């Protein structure tokens, strides 16, 4: 773990304020987990731009790329055109992207950004509770690839490679939904 910003002095007072936070520094490169090692993705109820409540359970039977992002996150912005292309390319095969924005000032920032970037997938406004359910979100982007049975097959923390995402999506789309559909409210690892 590496600290972010640290005060080293206030001149005139010469005090160390000790403001720190522990943060990961290396992106996590996710491999698609074996079937038996996948945990169920926690369900959530978050609002989209129209004020409609969106649940992960609404996507039962589909492969879902669940992306936690923010307008102020440069690496997140790099990935968005990839996700827009994935939505277009794979939608008819039972795939959906859901973007969870962690912008504190909400739709005021998100709406013009979505319009500017021509995002074609659903965006919902996230909150700390949902972030905690998904492991605490120490950094953005954090992206989960969820199989047709609602289980987390892959996790990416930080800017990932387009190929890694696409390989995971293709693999999961080829696998049929075979297990009892169950999305619980437990935490993701």
């Amino acid at each position: 773990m590496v600290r972010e910003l640290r005060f080293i002095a206030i001149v005139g007072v010469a005090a160390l304020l000790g403001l720190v936070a522990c943060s990961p520094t290396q992106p996590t490169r996710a491999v698609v987990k074996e079937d038996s090692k996948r945990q169920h993705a926690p369900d959530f109820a978050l609002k989209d731009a129209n004020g409609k409540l969106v649940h992960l359970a609404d996507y039962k039977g589909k492969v879902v790329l669940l992306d936690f992002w923010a307008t102020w996150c440069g690496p997140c912005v790099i990935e968005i055109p990839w996700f827009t292309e994935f939505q277009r390319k794979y939608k008819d095969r039972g795939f959906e992207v859901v973007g969870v924005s962690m912008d504190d000032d909400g739709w005021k920032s998100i709406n013009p950004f979505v319009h500017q970037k021509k995002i074609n997938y659903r965006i919902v406004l996230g909150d700390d509770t949902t972030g905690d359910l998904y492991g605490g979100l120490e950094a953005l982007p954090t992206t989960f690839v969820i199989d047709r049975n609602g289980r987390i097959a892959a996790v990416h923390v930080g800017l990932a490679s387009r190929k890694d995402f696409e390989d995971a999506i293709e693999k999961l789309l080829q696998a049929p939904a075979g297990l009892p559909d169950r999305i619980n409210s437990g935490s993701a690892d």
Partner: protein
Amino acid sequence: MPTLKVRKGSVAAVTLRAVLPPGFHANSNTPTDEYLIPLTLKWTGGPLQVDGITYPKGSLEKYPFSAKPLSVVTGEFSVSTKFKVPADAANGAAAQNGTLKYQACNDRMCFAPKSVPVTVTLEIE
């Protein structure tokens, strides 16, 4: 915590010195994109009157995730504030409070904006 002694009717200066670890950067107070969160110091309470804040000059740095260079601070940097001490300030101990807001990234990921409390202990005479 050491105390800053100030005289009524005079001026005072406080400099916050901070450091980011290698590989990290934070947006300067004048980021190059409207969506980026600027480095911002706000003094929220206390007897001193703010007479100007000087931020570090951002350096333009290119990162893999950005099409254009970003105005950032890295390593050690300082934010300075000039204060006026009111002539009618009460003698004795006091505190000047504020928050420093910053948002940091490395070259692959970004971290939530943070607002860090700042307190300067004063002795007014």
